[in-house]
């Protein structure tokens, strides 16, 4: 017994750095945020316990519901990028495709670049008066809207940017999934006379479902964290912002503009709860459509 106990200490020493890291960088901020959400804080620190007051304000705040709706719409549009990525990935993985590397690089490039830098470029593209997008639309006779200063257009503009940025990452994950599908399956199918489209529906998509599931979880979580594109593309003083803001923007506004860190912490807890619920739901629901064979 004694010898065992002496050994017993060592493993703990080796995992201690990890425990410390998790404790300092995850657990402590989590607990601190939870605590803060029950307090009212001063502009430069210092706080007073106010009970559930922040949460009652949160529930009564119409802006919160609007932000949830905006975030859901945004996430739904970005999720549409997954089917697109499935299509592109399977096209790019066709054997014998010339220049596949070039295409893959092009698709992946937006994912590597900084979101803020990309947003600033798209801000110019989307500009209603001088932007490239509206100039192009003019050629085909369409008078483009002012993309980033009208409520729903602005949200769609942000979402399309998010979709465009996510496709590269989605394709990398899906390509790995595609590599795992044995070639014999396709050979056997074509011997049986299945067309390319039939093969895609009966073999490619079902066998990719684990990858698709993974992407849908990751995309949903990222979607609920929408902030940087929104902030950089629309700009904080944009009059459309109150109608387009996301949950994280609401958090930013409360914490850093309004100096109300307690309320901001309550918003953060709400985001955590919503994302947690959605993820649990997705894991429950996956049994119906994901095949792990």
């Amino acid at each position, binding site marked *: 017994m004694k010898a065992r106990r002496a050994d017993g200490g060592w493993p*703990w020493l080796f995992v201690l750095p990890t*425990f*410390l890291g998790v*404790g*300092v960088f995850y*657990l*402590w901020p989590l*607990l601190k945020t939870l605590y803060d959400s029950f307090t009212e804080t*001063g*502009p*430069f*620190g210092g706080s007073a316990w106010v009970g559930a007051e922040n949460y009652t304000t949160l529930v009564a705040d119409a802006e919160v519901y609007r932000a949830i709706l905006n975030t859901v719409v945004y996430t739904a549009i970005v999720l549409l990028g997954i089917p697109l990525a499935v299509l592109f990935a399977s096209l790019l993985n066709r054997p014998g495709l010339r220049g596949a590397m070039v295409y893959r690089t092009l698709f992946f490039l937006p994912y590597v670049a900084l979101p803020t830098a990309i947003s600033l470029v798209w801000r110019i593209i989307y*500009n*209603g*008066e*001088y932007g490239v997008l509206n100039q192009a639309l003019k050629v085909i006779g369409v008078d483009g809207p*002012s993309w*980033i*200063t*009208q409520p729903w257009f602005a949200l769609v503009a942000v979402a399309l940017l998010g979709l465009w940025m996510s496709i590269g990452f989605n394709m990398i994950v899906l390509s790995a999934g595609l590599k795992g599908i044995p070639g014999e399956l396709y050979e056997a199918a074509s011997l049986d006379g299945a067309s390319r489209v039939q093969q895609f529906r009966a073999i490619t998509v079902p066998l990719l479902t684990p990858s698709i599931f993974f992407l849908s979880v990751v995309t949903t979580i990222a979607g609920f964290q929408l902030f940087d594109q929104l902030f950089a593309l*629309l*700009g*904080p*003083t*944009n*009059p*459309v912002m*109150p109608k387009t803001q996301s949950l994280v923007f609401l958090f930013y506004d409360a914490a*850093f*503009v*309004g*100096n109300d860190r307690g309320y901001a912490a309550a918003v953060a807890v709400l985001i955590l709860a919503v994302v947690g619920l959605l993820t649990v739901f997705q894991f429950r629901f996956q049994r119906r459509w994901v095949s792990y064979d």
Partner: protein
Amino acid sequence: MRISALLAGVVLAATALTACGGNSGNDAGDAKVPDDPAQVKGDLTYAIWDVNQQPAMQELVKAFNAKYPNVKVSISLATFDQYFTKLKTQGTSDNLPDVFWMNGPNLQLFAANKQLATLDGLIEGKQVDPANYPQALDDLYSWDGKQYGVPKDFDTIAFWYNKKLFAEAKVAEPTADWTWDDYKAAAAKLKAALGPKGIWASGDELGNQGNYYPAIMSNGGYVIKDGKSGYGDPKSVEGLQFWSDMVKAGYTPTAAQNAETPGRERFFSGKAAMMWNGNWLVSMALKSPVKNDLAILPIPKAPNGERKTPIHGLANVMSAKTKNPQAAAAFLAFLGSKDAALIQAKAGAANPAFNGTQGDFVSSAPYALKTFIDAAAQYSEPYPVSKDTSVWNKLETDQIAPAFGGDKPMSEVGPDVAGKMDEALGKEK
């Protein structure tokens, strides 16, 4: 069991770590500068928000280093939109820059929360003399009987226009006797002639300081007086309505269009013929492609024949918790000196606050820059602030700016904002 005990230990350790970061700074308030400059050593951060003034600030650092070779000053630039957000966050964790730009709306908030060093030491040591700056600016940077900032510059609002565009539209050039009606009438003609080419009559940004504060003040209204909002006052509402009409008629871009392309960018790229704006744009004007076509006049008069402009100025302040109080105090004293004011003026960066140094600023550009100085002396009013100005400034951005040109008349918007603003002012402690 053991895991949870360990976790508890970790949490405790983390708490202890965070606690260590707390208020351990020494009070820099009575910092004095030693007589021998070579003794002053260390690194300083100097935070500013205007990229147009950055070259001038670098020149100031260079001149400072000629006297104090052992202090390294690094300039940190953030855009104005994020500047105070960043400072408040840094203040929360006791990491404020050593010396930084401050404005009127934020002074009381930072001073009352003990983030700023007082200038008592510097004033007693005769390194800073408040008498060197306009009284109104010293007052703006004093709180509770103590001075916290060394005024850096001051600004007023004037009427900028593009001579070439007026000629192109065959509209007679403005004069100093213009009224709001003349401004509107000219806008109509400019729009008819230049509108089809994508050029705006007035590239006004619908900003508070540049546009609706001067309109309200000229018309005899007010923004804040004795802790009460003036947005419900009929005279203030008329000032707001002037800009609303300009937007509605299509002479001035809407707040949304300004969010996409700021008015000053339109004006300085020849896409707008007129605007009301401040003297902080002189260095931007000199770099613009239309720099030879620009001219400056006093802002047009209100229907009552009066004109008023808010006067505001920046100050340099130092953090109460700077790790290098001596170097920071030396730098602050230098920034408040006549030499520093002259360097700024020559660069056309800003109109220096140091009394009697504005001559170089006036001759730094081929425009009638004296207009700004005269405005300060003859028809300026103090810039409206309270202890927590940013709260009602947000009401202005969120509710007044988008309402210009909208369907709701300002006679509804004004009193509505006034109610909310009074509520916010009532909560200030």
